[in-house]
């Protein structure tokens, strides 16, 4: 039971909100690029294997941890984890479940605001008559803050997130999910059909849209034996499902104690896969290949990644469809990116709100404004120093490393400390589908092993990042100018400051957890039920 009257209004709302939490910009911008770079059509094999062996188990684990914690009045991971073991340090592992959401939201809301801004630019015909270079340069100018517009849209986004969160789950988050997710899927289907049906010679296209599909889905079965490809597949499953963040536990903590987990989790998980595999793979690549060919698309991806394709390339390509359709296409494309973003950022706001309400009795509105203020303060460096890699630094530590670390710990807690037998009872309690017993074995042995493998294989990259190896390599180039050296040194300084800021944030949250624990002890509010 909760100490405040927050709950989901409907089962469909919960599932759509959970799916919205998972569906993000990466479904449309990261997956297709990962697939192309890791074997094309054969990527789907390690991808789906990792979904079954890691993705679904982690969904089961996080949903059931959340519902378990919610039953005992805990709506954020520090005390959800604490309630599952008598060892005190687990609540500090739970700090990741608040830290990661805040740190990711700090830069994610900025991304989301780009999508919102580009909806406006599409509506107002900003890209009409522009060349490919001009459209690309527009994005460069935008992120370099050549005007105040990015800040305005960012502020609008933050206020919107804060206001929706202040309306609560059923009054705010669920309503956005019930409108945003169906629209996102509808826009995605329309754009996918448009992309796949492109014909060479029509609307300026040089190649058929199916050429891009052909390139994306032609399998290179040799890559199935590559560890790098399996690591990429596991990573993509990880990031696409938003596991390891703490937001799923938070959402699930507002369920009733015997509400189904198994069917809900499967529905939300597969909905994410539909958006990623079916829609995400059918928009950016077919459209880009239709106009630039495979070599041109590959060059663009290598230069600017999926984000570049989405913001630098597609607005130009939409113009080839005529001024009216370009507006619709731009609004739909950036509209779906915005819906994907906001349904995720709203989920990121709920853990800190749950924590402040549970532990310090804050009102919902106060807690929502706290989230907005924190995201603004923490996000400002990523906005102002975007071109110095502060954004990338947040993304790496919070959006990559932190997820893997937390997921590994929570899996060990669930399967080995809390115990897989108790865990299995939680998963199957109230289930509306029969969960295959094989998942019990997978959760206990396979999922932790995969997570350990991901972490171990990521260690060289972590060490390189700590040492700023890539930048130091550039500095060793004797041909670079003094100005470039100064810029690179400034980049190192700002990145290191960002790291300390993130570390400070983690420590700050841990201190809050310690204060909350002392408060619980004084008030006789026991936490562990283990």
């Amino acid at each position: 039971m909760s100490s405040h009257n927050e709950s989901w209004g409907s089962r469909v709302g919960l599932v759509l909100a959970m799916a919205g939490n998972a569906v993000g910009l990466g479904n449309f911008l990261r997956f297709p690029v990962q697939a192309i770079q890791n074997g094309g059509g054969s990527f789907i094999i390690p991808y789906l294997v990792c979904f079954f062996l890691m993705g679904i188990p982690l969904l089961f684990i996080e949903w059931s941890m959340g519902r378990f914690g919610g039953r005992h009045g805990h709506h954020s991971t520090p005390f959800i984890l604490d309630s599952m073991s008598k060892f005190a340090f687990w609540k500090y592992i739970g700090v990741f479940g608040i830290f990661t959401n805040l740190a990711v939201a700090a830069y994610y809301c900025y991304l989301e605001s780009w999508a919102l801004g580009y909806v406006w630019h599409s509506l107002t015909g900003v890209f009409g008559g522009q060349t490919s270079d001009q459209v690309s340069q527009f994005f460069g100018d935008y992120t370099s803050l050549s005007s105040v517009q990015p800040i305005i849209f960012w502020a609008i986004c933050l206020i919107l997130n804060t206001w929706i969160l202040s309306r609560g789950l059923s009054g705010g988050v669920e309503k956005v999910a019930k409108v945003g997710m169906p629209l996102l899927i509808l826009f995605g289907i329309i754009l996918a059909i448009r992309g796949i049906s492109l014909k060479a010679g029509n609307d300026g296209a040089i190649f058929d849209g199916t050429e891009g599909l052909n390139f994306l889905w032609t399998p290179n079965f040799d890559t199935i034996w590559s560890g790098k490809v399996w690591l990429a597949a596991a990573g993509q499953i990880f990031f696409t499902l938003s596991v390891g963040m703490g937001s799923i536990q938070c959402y699930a903590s507002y369920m009733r104690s015997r509400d189904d987990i198994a069917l809900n989790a499967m529905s939300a998980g597969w909905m994410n896969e539909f958006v990623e595999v079916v829609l995400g793979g059918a928009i950016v690549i077919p459209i880009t290949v239709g106009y630039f060919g495979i070599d041109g698309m590959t060059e663009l991806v290598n230069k600017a990644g999926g984000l570049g394709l989405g913001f630098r390339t597609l607005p130009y390509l939409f113009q080839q469809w005529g001024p009216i359709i370009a507006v619709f296409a731009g609004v739909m494309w950036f509209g779906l990116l915005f819906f994907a973003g906001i349904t995720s950022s709203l989920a990121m706001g709920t853990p800190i709100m749950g924590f402040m309400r549970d532990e310090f009795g804050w009102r919902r509105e106060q807690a929502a404004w706290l989230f907005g203020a924190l995201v603004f303060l923490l996000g400002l460096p990523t906005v102002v120093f975007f071109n110095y890699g502060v954004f990338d630094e947040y993304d790496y530590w919070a959006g990559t490393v932190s997820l893997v670390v937390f997921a590994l710990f929570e899996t060990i807690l669930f399967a080995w400390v809390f115990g897989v037998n108790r865990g299995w009872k939680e998963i199957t309690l109230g289930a509306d589908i029969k969960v295959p017993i094989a998942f019990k074995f997978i959760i206990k042995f396979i999922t932790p092993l995969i997570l350990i493998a991901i972490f171990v294989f990521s260690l060289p990259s972590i060490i390189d990042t700590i040492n700023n190896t890539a930048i130091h390599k550039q500095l060793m180039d004797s041909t670079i100018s003094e100005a470039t050296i100064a810029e690179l040194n400034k980049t190192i300084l700002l990145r290191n400051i960002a790291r300390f800021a993130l570390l400070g944030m983690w420590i700050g949250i841990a201190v809050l957890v310690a204060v909350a624990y002392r408060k619980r002890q004084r008030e006789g509010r026991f936490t562990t039920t283990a």
Partner: protein
Amino acid sequence: MNTTALIMFLGSVITVTAFTVYFFYKVLTTPPSAKEEDDQPIPPVKSFDVS
């Protein structure tokens, strides 16, 4: 599209779409069962001003 790409594409799309539709259809059509609240006592919680 070449045959292998078409097989991979259609196989993946049909599989993912089928699972998605199946589970969401079940969510929509499974009637809410009368699930009694857990008998486990909830630990004492100090009441806050929770407007």
